[in-house]
Structures are given as C-alpha cells and as structure tokens.
C-alpha cells in the first residue's frame, strides 16, 4: 500500500486569501487525484494531477480557482484561491496504486471565515 501525507492537516483562513495544500507519497505513482468533501457530503473529484502537464479538471472546477502542481511522481500541491466560506471542506489527495486500489491521504480540513 502507499503511505500518503498531507500538510497542513487543518487550517482556518480568512476569505479572499489562498491556501496551498501539499500531498507527499512514499513511492512513485502515476496517477494522483484531488477530492473535495463538503460538510456532511460525499467526495467529489476536483482534478487529476498530471506529472509534466496541466491538471485535468472535472466539470465545475477550474484552474484559476484550484491550481494544481505535480513536479514529480511523489508530490503534488492543490491551491484553493480567493477563498470564500463555501470552500470550507476537507480536501483529500489520493493515488492509484497496484491493481487499481486507490489510497487516500489523511485530508486537510479547511475552514474559511
């Protein structure tokens, strides 16, 4: 299995500011993803983080709001830009590992005031 860490684990931010979330994996992986979990809801895929090219965003998510970097096969960042209270969520990264199993990081709990 893959071991995934995220930083920060939680943060409280003011509206209008931006937060960058880091995701580190203990082994090289091809596929990395970012998900959002709004309060009391299930997970929704934000984008696929592609190494060496732009991320692929899902419907309803745009690069200006959620810029993503993937500089190598073990690391990715997600930035939540110009935050509003509606961005308060848990943000999780995941990796697709051996035989299609996907593993998730511990999540970043974001509260926007």
């Amino acid at each position, binding site marked *: 299995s893959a071991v995934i860490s995220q930083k920060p684990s939680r943060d409280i931010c003011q509206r209008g500011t931006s937060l960058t979330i880091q995701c580190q994996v203990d082994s090289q992986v091809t596929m990395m993803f970012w998900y959002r979990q709004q309060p009391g809801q*299930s997970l929704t895929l934000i984008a*696929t983080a592609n190494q060496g090219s732009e991320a692929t965003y899902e419907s309803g998510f745009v690069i200006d709001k959620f810029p993503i970097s993937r500089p190598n096969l073990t690391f990715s960042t997600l930035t939540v830009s110009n935050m509003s209270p509606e961005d308060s969520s848990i943000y999780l990264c995941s990796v697709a590992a051996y035989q299609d199993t996907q593993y998730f990081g511990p999540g970043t*709990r974001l509260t926007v005031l």
Partner: protein
Amino acid sequence: SQQGEEDPQALSIQEGENATMNCSYKTSINNLQWYRQNSGRGLVHLILIRSNEREKHSGRLRVTLDTSKKSSSLLITASRAADTASYFCATDGFRENQGGKLIFGQGTELSVKP
C-alpha cells in the same frame, strides 16, 4: 456527478450484531471499492472487488457484487464499537478515459453501540 446511491443513509446497531450496507451505481464498471472514514478524517481502503467477481472476504468484511443489478453490499459481522464510522462505495467507471477516477456513493453512517 455522483454515481452511487447507498442505503441506508444511517444505521444504528448493537455491538455483536451484523451490519449490512448497500450501494447501487449507474454505469458499467471495472471494479468497486469500499472505504471507511472516521469522524471526517482520511479514507481507509477496505476492499476492492472486480466486475468479474461476485463475492470477496476480508476478515469480518464480506462484499458482494451483482453487475446485472448494478449493486454491491458490504457486510460487517460481529460489529464492534470501533466500527463506528461512515462507509463509502466508489466505482471507477468503465470508459477508457476515466483513467482511474473514482465516483463515490453518498455513504452510510454506521453507529455501533456498546
């Protein structure tokens, strides 16, 4: 958009009882995965079942898959208070361009009382 519907949305049982959660999905799939989430933390992977499998076991967990009905169930036997959590099913979709993306069900909140 959400692929799966899970029922029940919430389930409360006594320790030692069995808990059954169901998941339905809409499109053809390659595999279906079940996850557990404790108190809004990260997701713990429980089990993956492929479209050509009908049943899979892992410890106290038993997962079934019926592709003709597009449904899956997760059974936890002899439940413990530590099993209290939210449980999600996730499917990968079948189209080649899905590239490993997961679509999650709405989840079942399980409460196991001592």
